[in-house]
């Protein structure tokens, strides 16, 4: 059995406006994993994180963190968690050093300048430690928020869209930090809009849509299970239209300028149909000069899932 560090059960949240942002969410986060929560805007990601961290009161349901109920035993639960919020909410006039030390104090930890220095260096903020936060760029403010969240040595780190508005270079640096944290045993839960990042980083992926968790899966498993592959054939001669009677049916499509044939197939199926397709092409006298295959990205999988869910909800 897996070691569950955060257990969310039967969680619902209806805001004062009457809007239900979470519907009976059940989710277990495993100790030491990187869990990516994916979902379109307004799906309820930030709300879910808020309930776990204590910034949002749930309407019903329970959350335990390391076995501690996050309401009745909130001190023990919250001590384990560092939160990097989605919005760039920082003080303006404080120095980087002061604000990070303040966070550590809030969590009841004794001063530890050596540790704070280590965090600031790992986030390339050391040179900026005496600067006022308002003089920093957006990407640097984001890293200040990460430094604040790490200041009390949490076992769990929540990153709510950490790379929004951060340039490529900084993003890479940030992921290095996240990987190093994971290697040191920190559990990481992140939401991101950059699906390739979830694909890169996550061990498991949860998809949330309209306040419901519609899928939780090992990333590899997910890619495998839902992964479609595409075979692209570059034709020697352009085709005006797909010849009738060609094998492949709806799986087959022709590019607008007629020089590429794309065949989409399921890697999990007993028969991919590739052999028959190729035979059928030879029979029809269609020759090709090159071919390539491509695995569909998580993004495509994800868009497909949310689409299904929407259609399902409409019925």
């Amino acid at each position, binding site marked *: 059995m897996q070691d569950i560090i955060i257990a969310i059960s039967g969680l619902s949240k209806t*805001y*004062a406006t009457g809007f239900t942002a979470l519907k009976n969410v059940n989710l277990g986060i495993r100790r030491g994993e990187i869990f990516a929560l994916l979902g379109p805007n307004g799906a309820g990601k930030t709300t879910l994180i*808020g309930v776990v*961290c*204590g*910034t*949002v*009161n749930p309407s019903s349901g329970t959350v335990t963190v390391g076995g501690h109920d996050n309401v009745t035993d*909130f*001190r*023990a*639960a*919250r*001590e384990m*968690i560092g*939160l990097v*919020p989605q*919005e760039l*909410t*920082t*003080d*303006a*006039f*404080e120095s980087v050093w*002061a604000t990070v030390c*303040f*966070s*550590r*104090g*809030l*969590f*009841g*930890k*004794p001063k530890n300048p050596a540790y704070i220095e280590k965090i600031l260096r790992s986030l390339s903020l050391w040179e900026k430690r005496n600067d006022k936060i308002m003089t920093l760029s957006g990407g640097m403010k984001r890293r200040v928020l990460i430094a*604040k969240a790490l200041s009390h040595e949490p076992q769990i780190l929540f990153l709510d869209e950490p790379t929004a508005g951060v340039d490529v270079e900084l993003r890479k640096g940030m992921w290095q930090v996240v990987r190093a944290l994971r290697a040191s045993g920190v559990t990481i839960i992140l939401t991101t809009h950059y699906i390739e990042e979830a694909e890169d980083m996550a061990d498991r992926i949860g998809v949330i849509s309209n306040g419901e968790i519609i899928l939780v899966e090992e990333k590899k498993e997910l890619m495998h299970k839902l992964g479609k592959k595409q075979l692209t054939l570059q034709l020697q001669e352009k085709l005006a239209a797909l010849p009738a009677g060609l094998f492949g049916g709806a799986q087959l499509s022709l590019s607008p300028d007629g020089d590429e044939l794309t065949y989409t197939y399921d890697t999990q199926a007993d028969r991919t149909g590739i052999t028959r397709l190729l035979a059928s092409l030879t029979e029809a006298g269609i020759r090709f000069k090159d071919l390539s295959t491509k695995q569909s990205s998580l993004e495509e999988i994800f868009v497909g899932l949310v689409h299904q869910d929407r259609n399902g909800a409409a019925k």
Partner: protein
Amino acid sequence: MNWRAVKAIYRFEMARTGRTLFQSILAPVISTSLYFVVFGAAIGSRITEMDGVDYGSFIVPGLIMLTLLMQSVMNASFGIYFPKFTGTIYELLSAPISFIEIVIGYVGAAATKSIILGLIILATSWLFVPVRIAHPVWMISFLVLTAVTFSLLGFIIGIWADGFEKLQIVPLLIITPLTFLGGAFYSVSVLPPFWQVVTFFNPIVYLISGFRWSFYEVADVNVAISLGMTLAFLGACIAMIWWIFRTGYRLKN
């Protein structure tokens, strides 16, 4: 209790005061000096004494109270309103601290600041008029009790406010007028009988009267009643804070 968190909040708030040293300290000193010029010199030359006390000296406790009440309310309300406004409140809500610790941090800092200001005004006054403090312990007690009570009130206002206008309303439209009408600059006994009765519905009368008694042993009401009213105020504010704590009013979604 997470005392390190209380200390962190307290120091954060005191640092904020430090950054705005000019507004925080110089402004009240200048306005106090102006009061002495206007009331002390101009009016004081006509009214030589009040309740047997030299007029310039008589107004010192009232002036201190005026600043103490305003500053306590404004500092504490701003202190907690600002994190709500900027969103940095997320950190307080997700830290292992309870509402009570948040209150102690913010209210403690606001009260400290206004007590320091009160003492600065006292020192400034000394430059202009003779000041005698008959009961220093009572003087400090009233100072501290009032500062804490009105910082609690300010904290409540800061939680209740959802805009900067609301932060201003209570200090400007309620506290300042009540202080001016509450005998900060005169003894209630100089008023016509009808207005004396009306005045006793003004709670601030009791605060100023008790405070002035600790200086000159002259009072509009018995000092025990003053103390009782101050404590009743304090109790009311604590009850209100408790209610906010129980209901989570306006802190979380």
